[in-house]
């Protein structure tokens, strides 16, 4: 979609999330209250199908459009599997399918399709306990295959994350598939795309953490003046801004590279670097924000934890800085010192 259309969509979605996805909704999900109305309205806005082609009942947007919406969702701690469904729908439509309505999640792990049997077990599947369907990229005769399985046909062991979202371990044991077709996207690539989605959500959340901390410092009065006037606080928040800026900049650069390079393999190195950076900065961002807000920011009452706890969970989702760092380090070491600079300037893995 053109720039103007995207800006309008983002503005509309921003207003919508502000009004309809407040603190009570986010806290409710943690207590097991599914916000059915919120999801229904999100579907009516077309957000889960934003990157699905129009001839497959989608909005016909690009990967970049989808990522922009998901960054925004990250800045509102939207507690439903919008990110997962949007990417799952993209994977299904890329394999020729027409995505069904409802929530989907990503079960990206070692799943094989052998003699018409789908089998495998995947840990840390986001929203496993509430998703209507599970989308996986299985290996079928050595080739990737997208398979969609309804929630009733898998076994789920719920393991909520520290952000209170209903993650879980999912086991496929010869379930019926709603859809199965050869995938232009490999499992490794699907994990990359999911990591990119998380990096963008983290950019949104990081941005929100900064604005929460800055606003708080202007309002909180101690020793007769707003704490924002203390140099110690100013320097902390300036450092926080630098960590947030790096998270945003790396995620946006990776989003651009993935979008321009194509769904099958665009921006591979940039995604790895961006997720490594987002995961690495998450701790510093959370630490400074909490320190600057004292006891108030440590309460359940305040919303800061909606974002800091998500940063702590998301940094591990689809590869932490250790995982992506190892991929990058292994490739660059193998290519040797002479390949380092040319690779860095072209945003590619060294070869």
């Amino acid at each position: 979609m053109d720039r103007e259309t995207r800006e309008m969509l983002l503005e509309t979605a921003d207003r919508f999330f502000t009004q309809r996805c407040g603190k009570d909704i986010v806290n409710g999900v943690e207590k097991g209250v599914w916000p059915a109305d919120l999801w229904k309205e999100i579907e009516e806005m077309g957000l889960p199908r934003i990157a699905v082609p129009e001839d497959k009942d989608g909005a016909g947007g690009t990967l970049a459009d989808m990522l922009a919406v998901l960054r925004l969702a990250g800045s509102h701690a939207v507690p439903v599997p919008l990110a997962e469904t949007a990417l799952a729908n993209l994977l299904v439509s890329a394999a020729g399918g027409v995505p069904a309505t409802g929530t989907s999640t990503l079960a990206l792990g070692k799943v094989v399709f052998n003699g018409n049997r789908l089998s495998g077990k995947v840990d840390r599947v986001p929203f496993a306990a509430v998703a209507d369907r599970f989308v996986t990229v299985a290996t079928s005769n050595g080739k990737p295959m997208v398979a969609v399985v309804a929630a009733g046909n898998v076994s789920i062991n719920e393991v909520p994350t520290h952000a209170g979202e209903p993650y879980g371990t999912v086991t496929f044991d010869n379930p019926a598939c709603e859809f199965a077709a050869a995938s232009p996207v490999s499992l490794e690539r699907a994990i990359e795309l999911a990591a990119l989605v998380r990096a963008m959500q983290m950019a949104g959340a990081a941005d929100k953490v900064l604005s929460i901390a800055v606003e708080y410092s202007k309002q909180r009065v101690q020793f007769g003046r707003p704490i924002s006037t203390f140099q110690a606080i100013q320097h902390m928040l300036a450092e926080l801004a630098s960590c947030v800026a790096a998270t945003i900049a790396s995620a946006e650069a990776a989003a651009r590279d993935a979008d321009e390079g194509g769904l099958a393999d665009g921006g591979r190195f940039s995604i790895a670097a961006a997720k490594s950076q987002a995961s690495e900065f998450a701790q510093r961002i959370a630490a400074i924000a909490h320190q600057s807000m004292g006891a108030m920011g440590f309460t359940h009452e305040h919303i800061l934890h909606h974002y800091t706890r998500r940063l702590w969970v998301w940094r591990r989702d689809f590869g932490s800085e250790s995982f992506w760092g190892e991929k990058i380090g292994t490739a660059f070491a193998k290519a040797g010192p002479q390949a380092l600079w040319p690779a860095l300037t072209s945003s590619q893995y060294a070869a």
Partner: protein
Amino acid sequence: MSIPKLEFPPFHLPPEAEELRVEVRAFLHETLPKVKSEDRFASWNTFSPQFSRELGKQGWIGITWPKQYGGSEKSFLERYVVTEELLGNSAPAGAHWVADRQSGPLLLRFGSEEQRQAILPRITAGECFFSIGMSEPDSGSDLASVRTRAEPVPGGFRVNGTKVWTSGAHRNHYCIALVRTSGQHGDRHKGLSQILVDLKTPNISIRPIINLAGRHDWNEVTFSDTFVPESCLIGNEGDGWLQVTSELAFERSGPERFMQNYYILRELVRVLGRQPAKRAAAILGRIIARLWTLRQMSVAVAGMMQGGKSPAIEASLVKDLGTIYQQDLPEIARVLAESDATTEEDMADFLDVAQYATMMAPSYTIQGGTTQVLRGIVARGLGLR
């Protein structure tokens, strides 16, 4: 909420800049093997008039300046590529560095026609080198408190005072000095001007200040009733502060703020060998990701500047992150090499380089605006002060 949005719109350097990169890289691959390796480690701290002349012959100094002054009228983004290639290949680019980056652009913007014609073509030829005369014994971060005075006298000024940390004054041709030309000490920004000083002028004494690594880069430059002709005033009397602040903001986010010790990363890749252990690979990969991010941010700021914006906060953020990265790098590299270097021989070479990098590291977060000054600027941008 009302805080300004921090955005780093991803930016592609244009094709002409990437084409120039290929040329610059080929030139450097040809030229650099002749340079001693210790000179390459110091990169833009290495004074090599010979290298600067060769670069000047290629037309790559003052590359954005008008042709009438010896420039090539290329874009700011092409200059960006030349700069990052010099750093990425550890070229000994110190002689012309300040003239190309700061002094030339200042003269182009504020200098007289006579000054431009006399100086700029010599800079672009790689034959005229500059020092910065801002800091004084009592004026570091608080630059507006400078005491050096230039009294108007018939035909010019009589200058008295002392400048410190004046890099290269013992071998450069000129120094641009920030001086008080009117009013009193304590008037702060008012009454300050910049003057172009030929360092061969009588009654200037230049004394070395050796840094902790044993290098003689810095000097103390003392003016004792030094006469400087009127034609050396840059721009209008009293505009010094305006000039200095625009000069300081100039390219705060350039690649020199995170590429100054790039060689240590390249050396680390070498000593870890082609198949490092998982843990070592992960640490290496994380540093590479960090450097890549800094470059994306810096290129994004360059793109915003090319687009006519003034991303002052963003530029300060890049410098803050970049200089701290540079400070972390030698430590991360040393610890990793000590546990994971492949051979002892490799390790001995590496430690030599690492030692130098460690000693230089404190300077990165001080030069050209300390971390604390930068954070003050960012805090103002966030509306905190």
